[in-house]
């Protein structure tokens, strides 16, 4: 019997994202759940807990969300994209019962709303067993400054973690956690770099599994598996086929990538919060560990949303250009109220650069019906050779 490849280890982690957290819990550890990609997980690690990022799942039964949350509010207050609904359904159903505490950041509206929705659902339905919550506030306006509100929010999270764990979260522990997470991000960047090599030998799907694993495995476990994946990639055969960029909504599942890559193309880059962006580095000031975390938290977009619109669009377009893609697919979920406004500009800018783009607006979260998408994407990919021949001539 051969040892499974690292990407298979990441696939296993992807298919059962809670396995590591359940094992951690079984050994007496504390699991702190969080949403989105800008919560300072270094503080969770410094508190001796395992950070576990909640993700959606396209197969979730959403009826419990209607019954336990939507029943509390008028319908104009309960609009949310399906991935957010599927996260809620897992919390309400007890599928995430290994999560001891949950941090909800002040990011997109549907995420913010979960804080109140869960508190009021627990009041209304005493049978619900929900984790204790912490609301991680954030100012996004260009009028806010790094030393103020957002730094206080980071301190407040530290105080909450100290209360939850009954132990002090000191600078030494924070500094050590910063190093661990820095290494995680560096490995994520190396995986992303391997993807954009020409030719690439790392599939977008395998990279997506690795990125997801960086959000649910203990850091050292991720470091070992990521290093092994990078070592293995050196010997993998080059992957043929067009190089694609995926933009639009956050893909916390691999169905779109799987469809694209089953058709012979490679997703070499993307712009969403479950992709290569997880490795983004920010120029942080020297100084006390908490100040460095606060600076990163201040700089990091809230749910991928940053001011200004132009900065967001440029960042996305630059990722596609840097990856030297042949084409792009933008897939926007129905109800994704951020991407529905940003994507048309991103599409227009890439097309202006001569990059063919397939823009799929108001789409299903689960990529169904899969055969329809397969057909659309196949037709889009079929037009490439002609396009590339035209470009070179």
């Amino acid at each position, binding site marked *: 019997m051969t040892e499974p490849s690292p990407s298979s280890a990441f696939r296993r982690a992807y298919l059962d994202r809670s396995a590591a957290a359940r094992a951690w819990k079984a050994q007496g550890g504390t699991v702190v759940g969080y949403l989105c990609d800008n919560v300072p997980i270094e503080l969770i690690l410094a508190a001796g807990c395992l950070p576990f990022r909640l993700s959606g799942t396209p197969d979730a039964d959403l009826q419990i969300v*209607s*019954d336990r949350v*939507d*029943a*509390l*509010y*008028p*319908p*104009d*207050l*309960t609009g949310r994209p399906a991935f957010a609904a599927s996260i809620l359904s897992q919390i309400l159903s007890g599928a995430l019962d290994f999560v001891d505490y949950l941090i909800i950041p*002040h990011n*997109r*509206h549907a995420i*913010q*709303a979960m*804080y*109140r929705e869960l*508190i*009021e659902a627990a009041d*209304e339905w005493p049978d619900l067993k929900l984790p204790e919550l912490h*609301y991680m*506030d954030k*100012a*996004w*306006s*260009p*009028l*806010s400054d790094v030393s*103020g*509100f957002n730094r*206080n929010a980071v301190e407040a999270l530290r105080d909450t973690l100290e209360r939850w764990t009954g132990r002090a979260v000191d600078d030494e522990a924070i500094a050590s956690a910063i190093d661990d997470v820095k290494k995680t991000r560096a490995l994520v960047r190396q995986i992303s770099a391997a993807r954009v090599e020409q030719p690439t030998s790392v599939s977008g799907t395998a990279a997506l599994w690795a990125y997801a694993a960086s959000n649910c495995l203990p850091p050292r476990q991720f470091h070992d598996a990521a290093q092994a994946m990078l070592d293995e990639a050196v010997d993998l055969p080059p992957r043929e086929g067009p190089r694609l960029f995926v933009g639009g909504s956050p893909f916390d599942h691999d169905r779109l990538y799987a469809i694209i890559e089953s058709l012979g193309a490679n997703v070499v880059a993307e712009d969403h919060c479950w992709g290569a962006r997880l490795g983004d580095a920010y120029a942080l000031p020297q100084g006390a560990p908490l100040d460095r975390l606060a600076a990163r938290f201040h700089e990091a977009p*809230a*749910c991928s*949303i940053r*001011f*200004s*619109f132009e900065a967001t669009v440029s960042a996305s377009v630059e990722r596609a250009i840097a990856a030297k893609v042949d084409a792009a697919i933008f897939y*926007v979920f*129905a109800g994704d*109220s*951020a991407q*529905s*406004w*940003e*994507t*048309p500009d991103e*599409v227009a800018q890439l097309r202006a650069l001569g990059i063919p783009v397939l*823009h799929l*607006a*108001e789409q299903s979260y689960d990529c169904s019906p899969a055969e329809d998408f397969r057909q659309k994407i196949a037709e889009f990919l079929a037009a490439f050779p002609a396009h590339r021949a035209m470009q070179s001539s």
Partner: protein
Amino acid sequence: MKPGDQTRLASVDAVRAHQRRWLEETRTAVAEGGREFAICNADDFEEIFTAFDIPVLVVNYWNSIITFSERKGPHFSAVLRDRGYSPGMFAMGLASTLEPAEAPWGGLPRPTMIVGTTRDEAQLRVTELWARAFGCECIPLDFSWTSQYKKIPPNGWWDLHFDRSMEMIDPARHAERVSQMGKLIAHLEHRLDRRFDHDRLRQIMEGVNEQMALWQEAFDLIAAARPLPVSLRDQTAIYQLNWQRGTSINIALARDFLEEVRQLVAAGAGCYPSERFRLYLATSGNDPAFHRYVRERWGGAVVSSRYSGIAPMYARDLSQQAPLDALASRQLFLFDKEPHWEVHEAKRWGAHGVIGMERDPSRPSRYRRVVEAAGLAYLALPRDADDDEVRGLIDKFVETRMLGAT
């Protein structure tokens, strides 16, 4: 005057006429005289612009004119869809600028600035895109009452606005909001090359209090009167007074409204032929499409809605807080769409039942539980429409809960 004879109030028509005239004058002043003009969200920065003597248009108000008054929602939704966007009511103003030929009332002049918001990612992006379409600056402020998730409003919150508003909001957010407003004021002082007059802001805020006291008195009279002297349509229409609130002209219009209400009450005027039963509408919509059916088939009346109770919540005790602090506290929490307040309002209006919108009216809901526990009947409807399904639900409700209960 017998019930049903009373039609539209002259004072309400005067408000609409004033708003149109104001827009015309502003457009001319911007085009010919280089006057400044601004756009902002409902509660975000209006009083500050007014104190700067800059005419300001509120996004929600303009969207409401496009959607409800001019009924151009389908046209402008198509405008947005053609450009790859997903249409929504908040973006109607943006659409009317992208295709100004169809904009109501001749369209908007080019603003100096749009004050946006981060309270919702779509609203942030729409205000940014709108500013781009105009070629003007957009600066968003953080937080607002619709992102009131960090601190859940306490019980009985509707009685706390005037002098206990700090109990309803997060103090850290309040401090940040005051700071951001200060920075935006400084930015405007630099751009406009003139000083901000804090005394003028106090005058505006005192004007808001005066206006809201007139509103409160008028609506207390309307709620207590039998028969109902002012229709739901006019109650909703007069809400326009809340835009450019606190100005001398709006105070005068509010006084005219109160005076007309006094006269109607004294005359025993009624706006609906019959009030066999009275219903309260727990939505933010206008006079609903099914209202005529309720009146003509059953002799009932929808006597008021959520909007009639909101305006007084703008008033603040300025003896306790500096105007900027008071303004920030109001911006961070105005009202909450929750059933306990709606029950309070429904009882104030002498309603026998409450109408709410529910995606699936057959399922249990907190609105139903709270309303019925308070001794009122509850009618859940899936949408504001006058169709067979809605009529069927109304018929069943009236037959089982209203007839004999009144």
